[in-house]
C-alpha cells in the first residue's frame, strides 16, 4: 500500500499547540513540581511503574507537563529515557533486603513479624472528604506535626529491614515447589524485541512495565474463568529497596540509593513430580513493580503463573498477553488511527460504491 504525503497543516498545528498550552494555564493557577512530588504519590508511583523509569522528580514534571494525563506522562518519560545512556546495571537486588513499610498475608494469620498494615487506602470508607476543599497550607503543617507528635512505643521489636517471607512457611513444611538459584543473565526487552516463545525474564519485564489497567483487566479475566490460576495472596510487601552497583575491577559494592517497591507472592496449588511420584505442592505466582501498586502486582502474579502454564485460553497465551499490555504500544497503535487515512478510506469507499452500483444494476435488470 502506498502512502501519499500531504502538506498544509503547519499553521493549523502551531495554532493547535497554542490552544493546548493555553489549556494548562487558562485558569491562572499554578502548581510547582515540588508540590506535585509532595502530594501526588499515587500518580507518581503509577507512571514510574508504567514508564519503567524510576525518578520521582521526572515523574512529577511529566505530570505537570501532561496536565495529569497518564498516557501522555508515560509517553514523555519513555521518550526521555531513550535519550539517556545506560551507565550501570545493579547487582542482584533481592526484596528480602527490603526495608518493609507494609506487609500482609491473606494466607496465614500468624506470620513472623505479623500483619503490618503500613499505609494503605484499603481501610478507608471511600467517602469524599469535603474538608479538603478548604484545606490550607497551615492545616497541612498542623496535620504533619500532629502525626509526628504521636507517641510511639520505644524500641522496635520487628526486624523490618530483614523481614522473613511468608513463603518460607510453606518451604519449611515441604509444601513449596522450590527451584534452585538461577543466576542466568536476564534478557532485556528494551534492547531486543520480543520473539516467541519468550523467556521468563522477558515476560516479567513486560508485565512489570505493563499498563496498570491492562494488567489488572487481564488478571481479573483470568480469575473469572478465562484462566485457571486462582491464587491465594501469600504475601504483599511494600517498602524501600536498597540498590547497589559493582564497578569494574573494584571489590566493594557501591550504594546508590533506595527505591519504593511492591512485591507479591501468590500461592497456587500445583502437581509436582517428586521421585517419580505426583505430589501436591504450591507454585508461586510472582509480581513486583516500582512504587506502591498493589493491585497491579497481584494481577501480575496471576498472569505470571498463567503464562508459566500454557493452556488454551487467552490469559495463558503469551502472545495474547505480552503483545497487548504495553502502554506505549497499545495507546500508540490505537491513536495512530487518528492520523489521516484519506487515501485508504477513499479506496474502500470507491469499492463499496462500485459494489452497490453493480448490485443495484443487477436488481434493475
Amino acid at each position: 500500500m502506498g502512502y501519499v504525503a500531504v502538506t498544509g497543516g503547519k499553521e493549523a498545528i502551531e495554532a493547535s499547540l497554542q490552544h493546548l498550552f493555553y489549556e494548562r494555564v487558562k485558569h491562572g493557577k499554578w502548581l510547582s513540581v515540588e508540590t506535585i512530588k509532595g502530594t501526588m504519590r499515587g500518580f507518581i508511583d503509577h507512571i514510574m511503574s508504567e514508564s519503567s523509569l524510576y525518578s520521582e522528580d521526572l515523574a512529577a514534571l511529566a505530570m505537570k507537563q501532561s496536565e495529569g494525563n497518564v498516557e501522555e506522562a508515560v509517553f514523555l518519560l519513555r521518550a526521555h529515557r531513550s535519550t539517556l545512556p545506560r551507565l550501570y546495571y545493579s547487582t542482584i537486588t533481592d526484596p528480602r533486603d527490603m526495608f518493609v513499610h507494609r506487609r500482609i498475608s491473606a494466607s496465614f494469620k500468624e506470620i513472623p513479624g505479623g500483619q503490618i498494615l503500613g499505609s494503605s487506602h484499603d481501610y478507608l470508607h471511600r467517602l469524599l472528604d469535603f474538608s479538603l476543599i478548604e484545606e490550607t497550607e497551615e492545616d497541612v503543617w498542623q496535620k504533619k506535626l500532629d502525626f509526628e507528635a504521636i507517641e510511639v512505643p520505644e524500641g522496635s521489636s520487628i526486624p523490618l529491614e530483614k523481614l522473613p517471607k511468608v513463603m518460607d512457611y510453606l518451604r519449611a513444611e515441604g509444601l513449596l515447589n522450590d527451584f534452585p538459584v538461577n543466576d542466568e543473565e536476564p534478557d532485556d526487552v528494551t534492547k531486543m524485541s520480543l520473539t516467541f516463545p519468550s523467556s521468563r525474564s522477558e515476560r516479567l519485564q513486560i508485565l512489570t512495565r505493563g499498563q496498570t489497567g491492562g494488567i489488572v483487566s487481564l488478571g481479573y479475566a483470568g480469575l473469572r474463568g478465562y484462566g485457571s490460576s486462582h491464587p491465594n495472596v501469600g504475601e504483599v510487601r511494600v517498602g524501600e529497596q536498597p540498590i547497589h552497583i559493582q564497578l569494574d575491577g573494584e571489590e566493594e559494592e557501591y550504594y546508590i540509593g533506595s527505591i519504593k517497591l511492591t512485591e507479591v507472592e501468590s500461592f497456587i496449588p500445583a502437581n509436582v513430580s517428586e521421585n517419580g511420584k505426583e505430589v501436591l505442592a504450591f507454585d508461586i505466582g510472582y509480581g513486583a513493580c516500582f512504587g506502591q501498586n498493589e493491585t497491579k502486582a497481584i494481577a501480575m502474579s496471576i498472569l505470571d503463573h498463567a503464562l508459566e502454564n500454557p493452556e488454551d485460553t487467552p490469559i495463558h497465551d503469551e502472545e495474547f498477553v505480552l503483545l497487548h499490555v504495553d502502554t506505549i504500544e497499545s495507546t500508540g497503535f490505537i491513536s495512530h488511527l487518528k492520523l489521516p487515512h484519506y487515501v485508504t478510506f477513499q479506496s474502500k469507499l470507491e469499492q463499496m460504491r462500485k459494489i452497490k452500483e453493480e448490485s443495484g444494476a443487477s436488481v434493475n435488470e
Partner: protein
Amino acid sequence: MKRPLRTKLLIEVGHNEAIEMANEIIKNYEVQEIQPPRQGLTMIKLRESAKNSLFYIGEVLVTETKVKIGNSFGTGIVMEENNTLSKALAIIDAAYKEKLPETEKWFYVLKKLELKLQNEMEKVKCSIERTKVHFDTMKV
C-alpha cells in the same frame, strides 16, 4: 568502614558532610574532572522468588561523576539529578582510593552519621510497628 555503608550514610543522611569532605580535598589536592556530572540510567536486576531467576524491573535515573586524584579514579553515583552530591561522592571515593590522610579522621564523621541513620530508622520502625494487627478471637 566499607564502601557500601559509607556511600549509604552519605547519600541517606550525610549530604552536607559529603560536600564538606569534598571541599576539604579540593582545597588541598588537584582534582581532575574525568566525567563532569551527567545523568544516565542504572538498570535494576531483581531476584524473583517463584523460580529464583533474575529479571530487569526497570531503570533508575542517576547522576554520575568521575574524578581523578593522583593515580586514583573516583566515581560518584546518586539517584535523581544531583550534580553537587554526585561530584562530592566522586571526590570522596578517589580520596579513599588514594589513601589521603584526610580520610582517616572522616571515620568519626561517618560513625556519627551511622548513629543518625540508625536513630532515624528506629523511629520509622517504631511508628510502623503501631500498624501491626493484634488478632483477638471474637466471642460467640
